[in-house]
């Protein structure tokens, strides 16, 4: 019903919270993945903002309007296969929320983002490095010369840190690959359906 009236008005538009969280997370991924160096204070702050937006979007998946809720796009391999069959047969079907492949992509990205948030937080023992001084100085991470002595004392901790960094880095690259696939998927589905899906993520515009 909502989809019908929305289509009559020229295409569905996601609600503002979906749009804002989508673009802030996209912006954060691009900034932290490609521009701001890892370990920099700005990188950490952007990471916090990303965590806030991700948390909000996931909360919205429980309490938001119908098409933003997880129940509207459950992760289902079977649905994804039948969607692929639809594509091969040239059938086009409107979905009230994400299409099954898009839903899988959303869950994959969220899972990766959660891993990025958790490993990022775990790497930084002080939530706000350099931002405060209670006569407490955080040992600089990645400073090999300074940390050389500590290496011997808590080698296990350092090892754990290395693994975290490894995961964080891999996750970052995975995220960029997923983002590229996501863009390709949006472009493909927009062409196939004859409806610009990007518009739904930008806004209702002037009418």
């Amino acid at each position, binding site marked *: 019903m*909502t989809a019908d*009236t929305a289509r009559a008005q020229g295409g569905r538009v996601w*609600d*503002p*919270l979906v749009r804002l969280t989508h673009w802030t997370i996209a912006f954060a991924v691009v900034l932290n993945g490609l521009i701001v160096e890892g370990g920099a204070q700005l990188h950490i702050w952007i990471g916090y903002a990303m965590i*806030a937006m991700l948390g909000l979007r996931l909360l919205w998946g429980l309490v*938001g309007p119908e098409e933003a809720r997880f129940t509207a796009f459950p992760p289902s391999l079977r649905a994804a296969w039948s969607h692929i069959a639809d594509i091969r047969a040239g059938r086009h079907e409107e979905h009230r929320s994400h299409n099954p492949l898009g839903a899988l992509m959303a869950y994959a990205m969220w899972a990766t983002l959660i891993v990025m948030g958790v490993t990022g937080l775990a790497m930084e023992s002080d939530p*706000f490095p350099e931002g405060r001084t*209670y006569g407490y100085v955080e040992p600089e991470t990645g400073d090999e010369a300074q940390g050389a002595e500590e290496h011997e004392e808590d080698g296990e901790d350092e090892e754990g840190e290395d693994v975290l960094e490894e995961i964080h880095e891999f996750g970052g690259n995975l995220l960029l690959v997923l983002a590229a696939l996501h863009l390709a998927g949006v472009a493909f589905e927009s062409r196939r359906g004859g409806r610009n899906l990007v518009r739904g993520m930008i806004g*209702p515009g002037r009418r």
Partner: protein
Amino acid sequence: MTAPAAGGARRGGRMRVNLLAALVILQALCAVFFVGDVVADLRLTGLVPHTLFEAAVAVALIVGTFFCGLEMRRAIEAMRRSEQAVAAASGAFGALIEERFAGWSLTPAEAEVALFALKGFDMAEIAALRGAAPGTVRAQLARVYGKAGVTNRSQFVSLFIEDLLDTPLVGLPSAPDPTAPRAAGR
């Protein structure tokens, strides 16, 4: 003719939703900041009143974000419901007009002129819109009024208003029924 008013209402609803969205996002950002701050303070100074108070702020922010989200959902759903109601009502009204026109057995040309008249265009405008001579339109309108059993445009429009007022309007106190005894109350 009602388009500007309806559009205004929709824009108002949308603005309310956008404002709520901005508020929710600000709250979520602050909540993450305070949670991080509490964790840092716990580590640095332990459980002191200052940290406890900050923890309370963090919890309040998270709960506030949740309820603000719920409120926003409600606003979005109310906006959609009213849009649907308007669409349904205008669809029903269109059906009613068609039914009336068919009942008076208006010709297609007469029906079109009648519809323009209902929408508030005057004779010259209708003639321009249809690319017809004003005299033709005048004659067609006269035939429409004749078939509908009225003598002028305001009576013609009233026929449809009357149909609308027949059923109690949503959101308005029901119109007093002149035939009902007053003492019966509502």
